[in-house]
């Protein structure tokens, strides 16, 4: 066995061991065991621990994974097996040492829950599989043997035969699809697209009435994030302006609708529709006011200024200074509900409203992207100097991008405030801006399906995973990093052909044109 194999597999094993300890320290193993026990049909009472055998199932799966990932893709079979075994051994050793420490703490009754909240005595005993010192040995043995098993599985499942089999299945499926398409009459293929659209429309029409107000709420939020994402994409993806303050524009729409429809600060009752228009206009004005002085800034400087703008708006809303005008830290409550043809809105109506707003936004976005304006924006994004030389008024188009993007943000904000019947400074924190940015990047810049998918992934999934409540944001953060490592172009990258020549060096290098400092190197 050469040194390299030992080194890499021991690193893998150590990593997995440390991750296991981390999972124990955040009590994840308890939750996982509870879920496994629920899956197996044994319910666990709230506040009590699941049986230790479910934890063993979790351990088995984890240890097999250790061996699987330790086995390298190429090389001799015996080497792969050894790698799995050795990684399992190291991981087992690490976990066993941790178990020994826990056992010692149990024996001496050392309570460190003040510092590490997860380490209560029952939880420690649970980690030792309710067997005391024997549990340490079980951990060690499990990891070592199953590491070997995992690598054996890897050897088996990655073998040539399996690959051939997979390939065969794939070709069979493709052939079947081709056959079906060929068998169908021409007209079905031609109009099938429209059929799918029709089906989608019917689903969108029926779903909100069927699945109850909770899902309407969650997916309404997803829809609003799609609109916000489209707004940000116009600034960031089309015209290449790095904007982190979209929450401020969102707040302008939300507060316009809130203040014009609430009895408390002003007692104005304008009704929803005119105030939504006011909200959009206010957001556009906000975008204009923000954009005018900072046109000369580029890149990260623009980012930090817009971030500052967002924070200024939030702090002003939160301060006592404007309490009489905006309601201060308590926000605006009891926002009057909109009516449509005399009937007040319920959650289904809101779902329809958001779907319509989303559809309108998407339509407008496509029209804009393919228009003269959209092409001007893209050319500014690629190279502002060249764009100027070809006769594009760079400042005008950049401002226009900010204003149009702001309009979308204002629209989303207005609907958001009315739907929640409340809006306050805490709805417009920096986190909102960061979330929208993440939606756009994770989904894929300049790609509407990507933005929709990103909204589902980042806003919809965490809401639906309420079961995992405590670990929601942790997993979210880890997923963001993982996503960027695996698919840096986003979930659904834009298919629009790059207008630039293929193979030109600056193709994907920069999101914005060369900027000060960078242009000098």
């Amino acid at each position, binding site marked *: 066995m050469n040194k390299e194999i030992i080194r890499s597999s021991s690193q893998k094993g150590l990593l997995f061991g440390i991750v296991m300890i981390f999972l124990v320290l955040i009590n994840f193993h308890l939750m996982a065991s509870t879920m496994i026990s629920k899956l197996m049909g044994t319910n666990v009472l709230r506040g009590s621990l699941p049986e230790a055998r479910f934890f063993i199932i979790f351990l088995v799966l984890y240890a097999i994974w250790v061996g699987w990932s330790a086995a390298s893709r190429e090389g001799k079979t015996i080497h792969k097996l050894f790698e799995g075994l050795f990684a399992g051994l190291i991981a087992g050793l690490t976990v066993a040492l941790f178990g020994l420490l826990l056992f010692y703490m149990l024996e001496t009754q050392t309570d460190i829950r003040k510092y590490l909240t997860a380490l209560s005595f029952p939880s420690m005993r649970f980690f030792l599989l309710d067997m005391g010192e024997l549990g340490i040995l079980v951990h060690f043995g499990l990891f070592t043997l199953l590491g070997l098993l995992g690598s054996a599985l890897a050897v088996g499942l990655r073998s040539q035969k399996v690959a051939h089999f997979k390939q065969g299945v794939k070709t069979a499926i493709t052939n079947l699809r081709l056959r079906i398409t060929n068998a169908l009459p021409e007209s079905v293929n031609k109009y099938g697209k429209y059929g799918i659209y029709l089906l989608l429309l019917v689903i969108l029409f029926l779903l909100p009435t069927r699945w109850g107000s909770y899902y309407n709420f969650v997916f309404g939020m997803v829809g609003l994030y799609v609109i916000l994402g489209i707004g940000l994409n116009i600034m960031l993806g089309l015209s290449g302006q790095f904007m982190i303050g979209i929450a401020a524009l969102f707040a302008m729409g939300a507060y316009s609708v809130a203040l014009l429809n609430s009895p408390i600060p002003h007692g104005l009752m304008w009704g929803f529709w005119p105030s939504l228009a006011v909200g959009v206009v206010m957001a556009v004005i906000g975008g204009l006011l923000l954009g005018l*002085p900072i046109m000369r800034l580029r890149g*990260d400087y623009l980012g930090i200024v817009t*971030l500052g703008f967002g924070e200024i708006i939030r702090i002003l809303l939160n301060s006592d200074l404007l309490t009489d005008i905006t309601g201060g830290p308590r926000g605006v409550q009891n926002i009057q509900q909109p009516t449509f043809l005399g009937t007040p809105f319920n959650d289904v109506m809101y779902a329809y409203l958001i779907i319509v707003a989303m559809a309108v936004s998407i339509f407008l976005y496509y029209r804009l992207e393919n228009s003269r304006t959209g092409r001007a924006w893209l050319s500014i994004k690629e190279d502002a100097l060249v764009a100027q030389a070809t006769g594009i008024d760079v400042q005008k188009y950049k401002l226009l991008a900010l204003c149009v993007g702001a309009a979308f943000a204002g629209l989303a904000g207005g609907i958001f405030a009315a739907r929640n019947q409340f809006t306050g400074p805490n709805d417009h924190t920096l986190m909102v801006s960061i979330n929208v940015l*993440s939606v756009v990047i994770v989904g894929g810049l300049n790609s509407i399906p990507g933005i929709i998918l990103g909204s589902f992934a980042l806003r919809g999934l965490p809401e639906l995973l309420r079961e995992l409540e405590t670990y929601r944001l*942790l997993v979210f953060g880890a997923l963001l*990093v993982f996503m*960027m490592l695996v698919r840096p172009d986003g979930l659904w990258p834009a298919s629009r052909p790059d207008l630039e020549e293929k193979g030109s060096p600056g193709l994907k290098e920069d999101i914005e044109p060369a900027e000060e400092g960078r242009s000098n190197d």
Partner: protein
Amino acid sequence: MESNLKSPPKLTRRNYSKIIRPIFGLLVFGSILWRLYEVLIAQQAYSAEIWVRLLISGLIIGGVYALIAIGYTLVYGILFMINFAHGEIMMIGTFAGYFLFEATKSINVAAEGSPPLSFSDAYPLISVILAFLVGMTVAATAGFFLEKIAYRPLRKAPRLVPLISAIGASFFLQNAAQLLFSPQVRDYTNPQAIARGSGWSLIINGSRVVITYTGALTFILSILLMIGLYVMVQKTKLGKAMRAVASDKNTAALMGIDVDAIISRTFIISGALAGAAGVMWGLHNGLVHFFVGFLPGIKAFTAAVLGGIGNIPGAMLGGMFLGLIESLGPTALGISYQLKDVIAFVIMIVILIFRPSGILGEVLSEEKV
């Protein structure tokens, strides 16, 4: 023909910012001057000791901001990325220092029969040094692994991708700390000798102004660390290599510099500085919780941009400047203390509008040419 030559095409016809910027600047500076006049000269609302007090607190907080801002600037100078998780590295340093103080507090070194005396009260100097060492080491390690896991594979990706990865890492670290150490806010255990609030008293106009020991420690140590860093970057071989990598990675690699190793070391250094800042933050403000790094992180980033990002003296200056503005600004302008961040951000925006690459931004570009 003639007229065409005389009046060149009006390219600047619609140059809005040319008109808007001076108006905007005049408005902001005018209103600031007016408020200053009103508060300082017309009303004379505050006496000297209040100003001294605010100045001291501004310098202390400015030192901490400067240390964190250097971390942002070092990383930005080399990788052109905003290390959004830098505030969380500082949080990790704060926690490391907290645990060390708790540990030294729990060791009893009293002689047999005498009342219990903890290690940290008996040897405050040693425990403070230990806390800083531990905080810096742990934070530096965290920075090293952060780079290795979340940023290194993205070296060649478009610029927004590492930023999102950094945001993800920031979420992860924050929530990991919350899950590990519970969301409660804890008191930092200072050694008795440098308990919060104790310090030297100055008598100004008959009233007492306290220079706290923690504050003095924070300020002096941050200045020392900054000088040390500056000397390191300017004089040592590592510093030279860092500057070379910052100005051109490819050429630096051709000169036999291991670019990956230098980037790793940059993260270690910036992590160590953030860790020191974290322990200072804990000692001086007395609180530690999982969210402790977020706001200082954002502020320090602002400070780094203010000074001209990528520029080390700029980050120091920006940090000090931001600290002073935050502490003196609300009083000097006669505005509620709630709005201190608004003042800081407005001044930052105004400075960036007139000097788009920060206060010392151009030094960097000249060096690079």
